[in-house]
C-alpha cells in the first residue's frame, strides 16, 4: 500500500465525528427563497445551491476530489427531512453513549437559528400528521414496527446506473431529457409534472457540473502555488479530470472513478439515504482497469481504486439517539457486487474481481461493502481469496447466492438477462438498474405477535391494547389455537406496517422527490417521473421481519413442554411469562422451555415453525400494493433492530427474559445452535429463499477454525453448499476475536455455539477448561 493511501486513511481514522451546519443553512436559505414554488423546483434549487456554495477543499494526498462537508468525517444535517430531534439532543450530542458527535458553538448557533423555520414543515412532520392512531401505537408505544429510517433520511437503496453515466456523461443524459421534454404533448395533464421533473433534473445536471468545475478551479489554483513538481502535475491532471467528468463520458480509470464519486456524493448531498450502491463494478470498470494494466500502470490503477475506497468512508450520517442504536457503526452500505454471471449466464469473474479484494484487504476501512455473488461456476480461487479477506477484514466480503437472487427477480417480472445482471444494494437487498425498492422501509417484530397472542393483544410493557383481542391463552387447547391467535396478531402488525409505508410513500412524493438520484434509476427519465412517485421500472416496498428464530423457538417450546410432555399448562406458562421467570418454580419452567429444541440445529420439530411462519408472511404481504404501483416484498433482516425490538418485547415462551435481545435476522438465537455450521445452514435453508428479498445469516467463527488452507477450503465448501445447493440468499462470517473470547469466559451461556480450533481439533470454546481457554486467547494474541 502506498504512503498516499496510508495518509488518506489516517485522516479518516483519526478524524473525530462532528456535525456540519453548512448544508443545513444553505438548504434553509434556498427553501425560504423558493417558497410557493413546486416541490421539484424547490428541491433542484436547494440542492443546486448547496453544490454551488458548499466549501470546496483538497487535501494534500487526494487523487479523487469532492467532500460532503468542510471537515473530514463531519455529518451534514438534512433539516428538510427531520430536525426537531436536534432541538432535544443538540446539547447532549457530544456525550451520548452511542456515537457521540463533536459540535462547535458556531454550528450549534447556526442550527438553533434554522430550527424555527422548519417547525411543521419537514418530511417527518408531514408523515406524522398523516399517521392514524394505530400506527402511532404500533411504532411509538409498543415496538411492533419501526419505520423511522425513510422519514428521517432519504430512501437510498438503489443502484446508480454507472455504465450509463460513464458512457454518456451528464451532458448526454441531459440531451436525452431535453429531447423528451421537447417531445411532450403539453395538452396532456400529466405532461406538466413530467416537464417539471425534466427541468429540475436538467438544472441539477448543470449544478453537478458546476460543483465539479469548482474543484477543477481549486486544483488549478493550488497547482499554481504548489512547490513540488510531482504534486503540481497531479493537481493539474485532477483539474482536467474534474473539467471533463461527470459532464462527459469517462475515458480512463481516473475519470471513471472521479465521475462515480461525484455522482455518489451528490446523491448523498441531495438526500442522506443509505445503501446507494455501485452494482457490478468488476464488470463495468474492467476496460479502464485493463487499459492501465496493459500500459504497465497496474500499481497506479490500484492506487486510484484505493483512493476511491477510502473516499467511501467520508459519508457520515448522524442519527438521533434511538436510531443510532439500530445503525451502530453508522453504516452507509456503499455496496459493490463482484463475481456472478454475465448476461449470457457465464461466469463473470474478471481480473478486477480479485484486485478489488486485494484493495479491500489493503485499505481495511468499515464503509467498503463488497459482496461476492456465488454460483456454480464461481472460480474456487476467487472464493478462497474472499475467505482470506474475511479473515483479514473481519467478515468482509459477504457471500450472496446468485440463484435465489435471480429467481426473486424472475418472480417479479424481470427478464432472464436482467436477472443475471442483478446486484446487491446495501447489505442484502436485491438490486437491478431500475429498482426503487424502499429497501429499508419498515421492520416488523414477529416475536411481538407471539407476546400479544399470549396476552390477549395487550402489550404488557406499555399496558396498551396493541393488538386485536384474541382468546385467553389459558383456553388454548392445542397448538393450532395458539397459532391462530398469533396469526391474528401478526396480520394486524403487518397491516399497520403497510399503512405506515404507504402513508410515508405519499409524504415522500409530496415533500422529498429524489430528482438527482432518479436520473440513474432506469425508468424515471423514460417516464418523466422521479422514483418516489413510481418512475422506476420496479417499485417495491420492503418489509424486514425480525424475530423469526425466537418465534419458532417459542412455538416449539410450547408444543414440547405444554402439549407433548404436558409438564405445565398454558395457564402456568402465561403465569411464568407474567412473572418474567423470577420465582423458583418459574425458573424451572424457563429451564424446560430452554431445553426444548431450538432453531439452528437442523431439527424439524422447531424448524417447521420457521418455515410455516415465513410462508405465511410472504403469502400475507405479497398482495399489498404501494402507491407507486408495485408490490410489497418480504425479507428477514434486522441490522440491530433485534436489540431495539428486544428492549420492547417482554418475556417470551422460548425462555427469553423480558427486554433481552432477540436473534439477529435468520441466525439462531444467541448460543442456541449447538450442532455446528452445517446444521445452522440446513435450518436456515429450509425457509423458501426464492421468495425472500434478502436474508442475513451470520455465522460466528473463531479465527482458529480458519487457521490452515485446509480450513479455508472447508469453509469454501460450506459456502458453495449453502448458496448453490441449498439456494441460500446470504451468508457472512463473524470472526470472533479475543475480546469476545474473554467475554465468553465471563458469560459462557451467550457463546455456547462458539467453535474454536486448537490443534488438529475443533471444540466448543465454553466447554474447554479455563486454562485451555486462556491458552487459546494467549496464542491467538501472539499472532497479531
Amino acid at each position: 500500500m502506498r504512503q498516499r493511501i496510508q495518509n488518506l486513511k489516517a485522516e479518516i481514522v483519526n478524524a473525530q465525528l462532528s456535525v456540519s451546519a453548512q448544508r443545513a443553512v444553505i438548504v434553509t436559505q434556498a427553501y425560504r427563497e423558493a417558497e410557493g414554488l413546486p416541490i421539484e423546483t424547490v428541491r433542484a434549487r436547494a440542492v443546486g445551491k448547496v453544490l454551488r456554495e458548499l466549501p470546496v477543499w483538497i487535501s494534500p494526498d487526494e487523487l479523487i476530489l469532492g467532500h460532503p462537508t468542510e471537515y473530514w468525517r463531519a455529518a451534514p444535517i438534512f433539516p428538510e427531512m427531520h430536525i426537531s430531534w436536534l432541538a432535544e439532543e443538540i446539547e447532549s450530542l457530544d456525550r451520548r453513549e452511542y456515537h457521540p458527535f463533536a459540535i462547535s458553538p458556531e454550528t450549534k448557533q447556526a442550527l438553533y437559528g434554522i430550527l424555527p423555520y422548519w417547525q411543521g414543515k419537514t418530511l417527518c412532520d408531514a408523515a406524522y400528521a398523516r399517521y392514524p392512531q394505530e400506527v402511532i401505537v404500533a411504532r411509538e408505544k409498543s415496538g411492533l414496527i419501526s419505520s423511522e429510517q425513510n422519514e428521517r433520511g432519504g430512501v437510498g437503496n438503489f443502484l446508480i446506473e454507472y455504465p450509463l453515466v460513464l458512457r454518456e456523461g451528464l451532458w448526454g443524459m441531459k440531451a436525452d431529457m431535453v429531447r423528451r421534454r421537447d417531445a411532450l404533448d403539453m395538452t396532456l395533464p400529466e405532461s406538466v409534472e413530467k416537464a417539471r421533473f425534466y427541468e429540475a433534473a436538467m438544472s441539477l445536471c448543470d449544478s453537478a457540473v458546476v460543483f465539479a468545475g469548482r474543484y477543477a478551479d481549486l486544483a488549478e489554483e493550488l497547482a499554481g502555488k504548489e512547490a513540488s513538481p510531482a504534486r503540481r502535475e497531479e493537481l493539474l491532471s485532477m483539474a482536467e479530470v474534474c473539467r471533463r467528468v461527470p459532464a462527459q463520458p469517462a475515458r480512463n480509470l481516473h475519470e471513471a472513478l472521479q465521475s462515480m464519486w461525484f455522482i455518489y456524493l451528490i446523491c448523498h448531498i441531495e438526500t442522506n439515504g443509505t445503501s446507494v450502491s455501485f452494482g457490478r463494478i468488476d464488470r463495468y470498470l474492467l476496460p479502464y482497469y485493463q487499459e492501465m494494466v496493459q500500459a504497465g500502470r497496474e500499481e497506479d490503477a490500484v492506487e486510484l481504486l484505493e483512493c476511491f475506497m477510502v473516499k467511501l468512508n467520508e459519508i457520515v450520517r448522524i442519527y438521533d439517539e434511538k436510531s443510532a442504536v439500530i445503525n451502530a457503526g453508522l453504516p452507509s452500505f456503499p455496496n459493490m457486487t463482484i463475481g456472478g454471471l454475465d448476461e449470457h449466464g457465464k461466469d463473470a469473474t474478471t481480473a478486477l474481481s480479485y484486485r478489488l479484494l486485494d484493495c479491500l484487504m489493503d485499505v481495511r476501512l468499515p464503509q467498503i461493502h463488497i459482496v461476492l455473488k456465488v454460483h456454480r461456476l464461481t472460480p474456487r480461487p476467487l472464493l478462497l481469496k474472499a475467505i482470506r479477506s474475511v479473515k483479514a477484514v473481519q467478515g468482509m466480503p459477504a457471500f450472496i447466492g446468485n440463484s435465489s437472487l435471480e429467481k426473486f427477480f424472475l418472480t417479479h417480472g424481470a427478464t432472464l438477462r436482467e436477472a443475471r445482471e442483478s446486484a446487491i444494494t446495501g447489505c442484502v437487498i436485491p438490486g437491478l438498474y431500475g429498482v426503487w425498492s424502499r429497501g429499508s422501509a419498515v421492520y416488523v417484530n414477529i416475536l411481538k405477535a407471539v407476546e400479544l397472542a399470549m396476552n390477549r393483544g395487550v402489550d404488557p410493557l406499555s399496558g396498551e391494547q396493541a393488538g386485536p383481542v384474541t382468546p385467553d391463552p389459558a383456553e388454548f387447547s392445542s397448538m393450532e389455537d395458539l397459532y391462530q391467535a398469533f396469526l391474528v396478531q401478526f396480520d394486524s402488525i403487518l397491516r399497520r406496517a403497510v399503512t405506515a409505508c404507504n402513508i410515508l410513500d405519499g409524504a415522500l412524493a409530496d415533500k422529498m422527490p429524489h430528482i438527482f438520484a432518479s436520473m440513474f434509476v432506469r425508468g424515471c427519465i423514460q417516464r418523466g417521473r422521479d422514483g418516489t412517485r413510481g418512475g422506476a421500472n420496479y417499485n417495491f416496498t420492503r418489509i424486514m421481519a425480525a424475530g423469526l428464530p425466537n418465534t419458532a423457538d417459542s412455538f416449539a417450546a410450547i408444543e414440547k413442554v405444554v402439549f407433548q410432555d404436558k409438564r405445565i399448562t398454558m395457564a402456568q406458562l402465561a403465569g411464568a411469562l407474567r412473572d418474567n421467570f423470577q420465582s423458583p418454580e418459574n425458573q424451572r419452567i424457563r429451564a424446560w422451555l430452554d431445553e426444548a429444541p431450538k432453531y439452528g440445529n437442523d431439527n424439524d420439530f422447531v424448524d417447521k415453525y420457521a418455515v410455516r411462519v415465513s410462508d405465511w408472511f410472504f403469502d400475507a404481504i405479497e398482495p399489498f400494493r404501494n402507491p407507486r404501483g408495485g408490490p410489497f416484498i418480504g425479507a428477514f433482516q434486522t441490522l440491530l433492530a433485534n436489540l431495539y425490538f428486544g428492549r420492547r418485547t417482554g418475556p417470551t415462551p422460548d425462555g427469553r427474559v423480558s427486554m433481552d435481545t432477540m436473534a439477529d435476522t435468520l441466525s439462531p438465537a444467541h448460543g442456541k445452535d449447538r450442532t455446528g455450521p452445517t446444521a445452522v445452514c440446513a435450518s436456515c435453508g429450509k425457509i423458501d429463499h426464492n421468495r425472500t428479498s434478502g436474508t442475513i445469516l451470520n455465522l460466528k467463527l473463531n479465527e482458529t477454525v480458519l487457521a490452515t488452507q485446509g480450513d479455508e477450503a472447508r469453509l469454501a465448501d460450506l459456502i458453495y453448499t449453502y448458496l448453490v445447493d441449498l439456494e441460500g440468499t446470504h451468508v457472512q462470517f463473524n470472526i470472533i476475536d479475543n475480546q469476545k473470547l474473554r467475554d465468553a469466559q465471563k458469560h459462557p451461556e451467550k457463546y455456547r455455539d462458539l467453535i474454536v480450533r486448537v490443534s488438529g481439533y475443533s471444540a466448543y470454546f465454553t466447554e474447554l477448561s479455563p486454562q485451555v481457554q486462556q491458552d487459546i486467547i494467549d496464542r491467538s494474541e501472539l499472532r497479531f
Partner: protein
Amino acid sequence: MASAPVFNIQRYSIHDGPGIRTTVFLKGCPLRCPWCSNPESQLAVLEPMYDQAACVGCGWCVAHCPRQAAEAGPGGIRFRRELCLGCTRCVCPNGARLVAGEYRTAEDVGAVVARDAVFYRRSGGGVTLSGGEPLLYPDFARELLGFCRQLGVGTAVETTGCVPAESLEAVLPVLDTVLIDLKFADSRRHAAALGAGNAPVLESIRRLARWSGQLLVRIPVIPGWNDDGENLAASARFLRECGIPGVTLLPYHRMGEGKYPKLDRSYALQVPPPSPERMEVLLDIFRAAGLTAVQG
C-alpha cells in the same frame, strides 16, 4: 439391528478426514492414554458427568435419583458415583448433570449423518466413526458405514488399531479412509503407558498398509512420553518396513482437561505442548527416514 453407545455426534468436523464430515464418537476404549482428550470415551458404560459451574443448586438431581447417589449437603451437592446406575433420571434442565453415552441404533445415527449429505457431496467429505475405539462395535460400524456408502457418503474410521483382526476385516469393505495412531513402536513402553501392548496395533497397521483404501497414520507427540528419538526413529523404521509413505504428527494439547473434573477424575498429565521448533525437529526425524511428514 446393531446399536452402540454414542457420546457425541459432531457435524462440520473438518479435521478428521477429507472434506466436511460428521464425526460419530463411540464409548469404550482398550487403551488408557494419560493425555486422552475424551476421558468419557474410555468406559463402554454410560457415565454421569457433573458440571459444577452450570449447577444452580436446584436439587433436581437429589430429588430424582432413585438410589440417592446425589445428596444435598452444606458444601453443595455431593455425588456418590459408585451408586450410579446410569439411569439418566438426574439429568437436569440446567445442563449441570449429564450422562455421557446413549445407546443408539445404526439406523438412527445414519439418519443424523445423512442430514449433511449435501455438504459431503460438495466437499468430498463424509462420516468418520471415532471414539473411544469404534471397532469395538464392528456390527454397528459395518451397518452404519454400509448405509452411508449406499447414500454415496464417504466413510472413515479413526481407530487405535488395538482390536482383533476380524473386527478390522469386518469393516474394511465399507471403508474409504482409516486414520490410525501409532503411539509407541515398542510394545513394553506401549503397555506401561497405555495399559496394553501394541501387537494388535502393529498388526492392524501392517494389514492396512496392504489395503486399497486411504490410510493415514498419525503419531500424537507427547513430550516426555513418546517424543524421544529412539521411539520416533523406531516408528519411522516400522512404517518404512510396512511400505507406508507418510505420517502426520499431532502435537499434544490439553483440550480434554476440562472434562476430567466432570467425571470426578483429575488430569494427571502436566507437560507443556511441544513448541513449533521442537515439532520441526521431530518431523525431520521422519523425513530423514524417507517418509513425508506433516504436522496435523
